């Protein structure tokens, strides 16, 4: 009995303490999200004609007018049948196709496809043509990390996918049907990831926008059920699935262009004194090895390298080593926390280098909360996505559209890399479905996979450097941005209107 009383008191104390956290705004949103999370797969977004579920504030279809200039009225998708406004979505691939082939020293990619009027509506052939499809609805599944040791880790990806669905529904849905997103939570565990995929595989037409470092768990399920998966992959297992296609494929390899560009820009004196740092976490090591080889092939000489463990508490020793080795350039590949420790130690020792390429994990709304802009001066970061936090809103309309719909969908969710992946995955899925509709095909899983398999180049309306979807080839293109003194990110190369540089070297699979 005493045990029971003690249990009661402890439960009460813990709940009261934990409930303090729920008073925060983002926690409220998290709770709201979890309410939607049902055991049988939880409907997260839905509602035709531009309304969004869950009280997250998506406006009516007319709201999109300000963002995209589209004139499509709100209403059920079926009423829009026949209003095929045609031009955009599937054209995206062809429009930017040449960009990836840019030769050395000169290729380039611009946002050739505009989001305005990209949504298309097609006459539904009606009927439940495949799993997750009804005459009025197409259910898509999302699997990622919402709870677990890091609550809300990839919530952004879910909200990004939901934002796309809301936008798509505001444009009349897809194939005359509204899109509904059903989510599964893997709690940062590959077993749970597998379970979530198992839970949804017989309920959804396709997986869209999923994001998890444990997606190896779901890969075998996708293979077994032959379910299309249009998402960002983080594991080799998912990348190699014949049913998985993503907006930025990530095979084992590294882009060579930036290393060659830096080599040309800085010359021997700098590139022969490179320090290479990477997160010493199993998942990151293989990619780091590829990255290092690319640098070495471009003429860099690594004079100091170290895998930084997550629990490293003082990197001053590394700085002393770099000073001793005469390091002039640093390449870093790791997470924001590890990076923050390194640049803070460098700042403390007043150690500066000519080239500080610290990886695009720095491009995050949290960056300047974790480390000061002063410590990041001279940083040159290469990236294959547009500046999706909003800086590119003026030059790439898709960025503005994405940010607008993120705000409408969940104003409390910061825009991040994962939300961009969710959005882009949705856009790729929609483009593939529209292509099928153009060919007079119904929503059928095998047809969707075939469509993706034979797809050429796609650039996400300028939001991502052109990639080869069917071949799962990442982009050869990239651009450089820097950190300004007033704690902002700014494009640095290429200059002018060109959004991406496609010269200097291809993506290397076998560096």
């Amino acid at each position, binding site marked *: 009995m005493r045990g029971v009383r003690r249990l009661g008191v402890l439960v009460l104390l*813990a709940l009261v303490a*934990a409930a303090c956290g729920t008073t925060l705004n983002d926690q409220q949103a998290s709770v709201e999200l979890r309410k939607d*999370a049902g055991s049988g797969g939880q409907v997260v977004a839905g509602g035709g004609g531009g309304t969004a579920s869950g009280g997250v504030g998506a406006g009516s279809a007319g709201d999109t007018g300000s963002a995209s200039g589209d004139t499509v009225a709100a209403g059920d998708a079926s009423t829009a049948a026949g209003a095929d406004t045609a031009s955009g979505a599937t054209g995206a691939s062809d429009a930017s196709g040449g960009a990836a082939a840019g030769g050395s020293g000169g290729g380039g990619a611009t946002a050739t496809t505009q989001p305005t009027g990209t949504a298309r509506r097609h006459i539904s052939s009606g009927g439940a043509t495949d799993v997750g499809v009804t005459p009025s609805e197409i259910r898509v599944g999302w699997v990622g990390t919402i709870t677990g040791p890091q609550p809300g880790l990839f919530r952004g990806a879910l909200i990004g996918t939901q934002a796309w669905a809301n936008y798509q529904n505001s444009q009349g849905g897809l194939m005359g049907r509204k899109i509904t997103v059903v989510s599964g939570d893997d709690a940062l565990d590959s077993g749970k990831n*597998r379970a979530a995929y198992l839970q949804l595989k017989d309920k959804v037409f396709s997986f869209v926008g999923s994001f998890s470092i444990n997606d190896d768990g779901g890969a075998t399920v996708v293979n077994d059920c032959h379910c299309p998966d249009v998402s960002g992959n983080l594991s080799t*297992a998912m990348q190699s699935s014949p049913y998985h296609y993503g907006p930025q494929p990530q095979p084992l390899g590294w882009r060579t262009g930036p290393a060659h560009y830096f080599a040309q820009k800085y010359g021997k004196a700098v590139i022969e004194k490179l320090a290479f740092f990477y997160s010493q976490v199993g998942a990151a090591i293989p990619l780091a090895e590829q990255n290092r080889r690319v640098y070495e092939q471009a003429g860099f000489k690594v004079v100091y390298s170290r895998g930084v463990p997550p629990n*490293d508490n*003082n990197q001053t020793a590394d700085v002393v080593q770099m000073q001793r080795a005469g390091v002039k350039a640093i390449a870093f590949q790791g997470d924001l926390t590890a990076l923050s420790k390194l640049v803070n130690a460098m700042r403390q020792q007043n150690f500066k280098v000519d080239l500080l390429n610290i990886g695009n994990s720095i491009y995050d709304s949290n960056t300047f909360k974790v480390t000061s802009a002063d410590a990041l001066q001279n940083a040159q970061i290469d990236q294959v996505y547009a500046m999706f936090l909003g800086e590119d809103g003026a030059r790439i309309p898709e960025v503005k559209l994405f940010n607008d719909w993120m705000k409408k969908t969940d104003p409390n969710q910061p825009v991040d890399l994962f939300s961009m992946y969710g959005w882009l995955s949705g856009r790729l899925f929609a483009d593939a479905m529209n292509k099928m509709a153009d060919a007079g095909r119904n929503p059928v899983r095998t047809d969707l996979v075939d469509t993706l398999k034979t797809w050429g180049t796609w650039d996400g309306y300028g939001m991502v450097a052109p990639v080869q979807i069917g071949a799962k080839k990442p982009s050869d293109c990239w651009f450089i941005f820097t950190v300004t003194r007033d704690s902002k990110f700014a494009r640095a190369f290429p200059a002018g209107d060109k959004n991406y540089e496609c010269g200097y070297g291809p993506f290397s699979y076998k560096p």
Partner: protein
Amino acid sequence: MQTFFAFTVVGIVTGAIYAVAASGLVVTYTTSGIFNFAHGAIGMFMAFLYWELRIHHHWPAPIALVVVVLVLSPMLGALIERVLMRKLTNAPVAVSMVVTLALLVILLGVATSIWSPGEGRRLPAFFAGDDVTIAGVRVTYHELITLAIAVMTAIGLRVLLFRTRIGVTMRAVVDNRDLAGLNGVLPERVASLSWALGAALAAIAGILIAPSITLNHTLLTLLVVNGYAAAMLGRLRSLPLTFVGALVLGLAQSYLIGYGGNVTLGSFRLIDAAQVVPTVFLFLIVVFLPQVRLTAGRVVSAIEPNVPSLRASLAWSGVFLVAMTLLSTTMSDFWLFNTSTALVLGLVMLSLVLLSGFAGHISLMQMTFVGLGAITAGRIVGTGSIWSVLAAGLLSAALGAAVALPALRLQPLYLALTTLAVALLGDWAFNQSWGFSGIGGTLTIARLHLPGVRFASEQSQLVLLTAAFCLFGVFVLWIRRGPFGRRLTAVRDSPVAASMLGLNLVATKTAVFALSAGMAGVAGALYGGLRSTVSPNDFIFLQSLFVFLVASFGGLTTVIGALFGGAFLALVPELQKHVPVDSIQYLGIGIGAIALAGNPHGFGGSMSEAGTRLREKLAARRDRQQVTVPTERPPAVVAS
């Protein structure tokens, strides 16, 4: 030489961080007799509280410091003592370990719920931007403060504990609580003061360390593990030796980074081992230094649940297997998979029933054995074959025996710390991508196939794992009933008496470690097959900690407890989706472990007890019925 001095300065600064972290640990142990595994978690929690006041609410630093270090943390320490520790005064060491480990998990869960890990936070250093140059190295004022506090703590606490009345009283309470009470000391008040002091030191450590490793829940909590090694050099008693240990650690790490870059062994570079210096140090110290007198204890009490007969356990296994097979026909793939996960984790728990429940040894590295089993099954021997499962068991058993041999003479606390050190070494090895490959660092493992039978579907996996659980359950109970089981309990209850009776302690302990590790290894092979892929994260120390805590409150002495534990670990994350409080798994594990700390047989023991009572009631009712049935009238006695 200049460089050597530079690395020396860096090492001393790092050592100061370890010293601050370790000193609070020593104080708590010296003044309360309890090794507080939650010390780092308290520091983490207080660092976040300080951030909340200082950064989020813009309080001036001195006021925020005073409130956190002198008010809130002592209050938390006293509260912990009052609510949790006071009841453990005469409890075995193992029980107090479970409670402090559970407290660690609870604080981690609560902090994660309040301060979302997804939000970036920075705690600026004191006097940021100000520094002095020593031997060519800029040392910040913050680091100097850390160093000064480490020295002052070592000296101050030495004076407090040995030169003041209250310090002597604190030590007296630990040495002999009753005697101290007879001399007019109020043990409860002294203990409260001790915990308040320990918590305040944890808060100081957290606030000083956070600026250098960023405000990260897990990192701050586990950084103190590095302090364990330093504290152990001082045998948990000597603050000066703890300080020396911390400096040695810091210097060793610094020199390894400075000079280990060019020392290679194949593809392995010595510099990459810098992070495991404290772990190796801890392992060596625990194993090789002479032990201090520690309070002996064990996991279970003398009265144990009934052990079913072979016939009964076979019958129940049959019923369970049939029931699960029938049930499997009605379940979706999702529930088949989740139930299978519960069963395979139940297998891991069964390995703990043998080791901790029957033999009384604590293991905080059970998932390391599981990981080794999974890697063996996926990489070393033809994956999916029965040989891969057997090899997984054998290799893990070998590791178990290797860990057991140096740890045999250790008492519960030291043994737990040894397994913790090996678990952290396992984390490091797994994170070196040894055994894993590709982006995401995964390993694909085929599902088991026997000649003519493939266990490819979710349903067949459930049946296979149910059969495996039944088999292991029957095996564990068979061991418990047999001579080896009796030897285990004898050694557990009184090693001295067992030795006097001629039992070979070394052989017995090594055998049970190897057997338990082997079972965990087999479970690892099946676990990998069920999930199809595994990654290093599946086997990290925190997972071992969860398994141990859940096994503790599931019940370390019963098969049903193991099943309950597996189900808890597998199914509670599903519950999380419906509960508006983050980290319900952390809170559930922690609260469950604390609540049932007084009942070492846990949930399984309660179930067993309830079953026994039910059987007794039924038997009593049968007896009553037999009494009321009219019997044949005895023949009349006829007088002759």
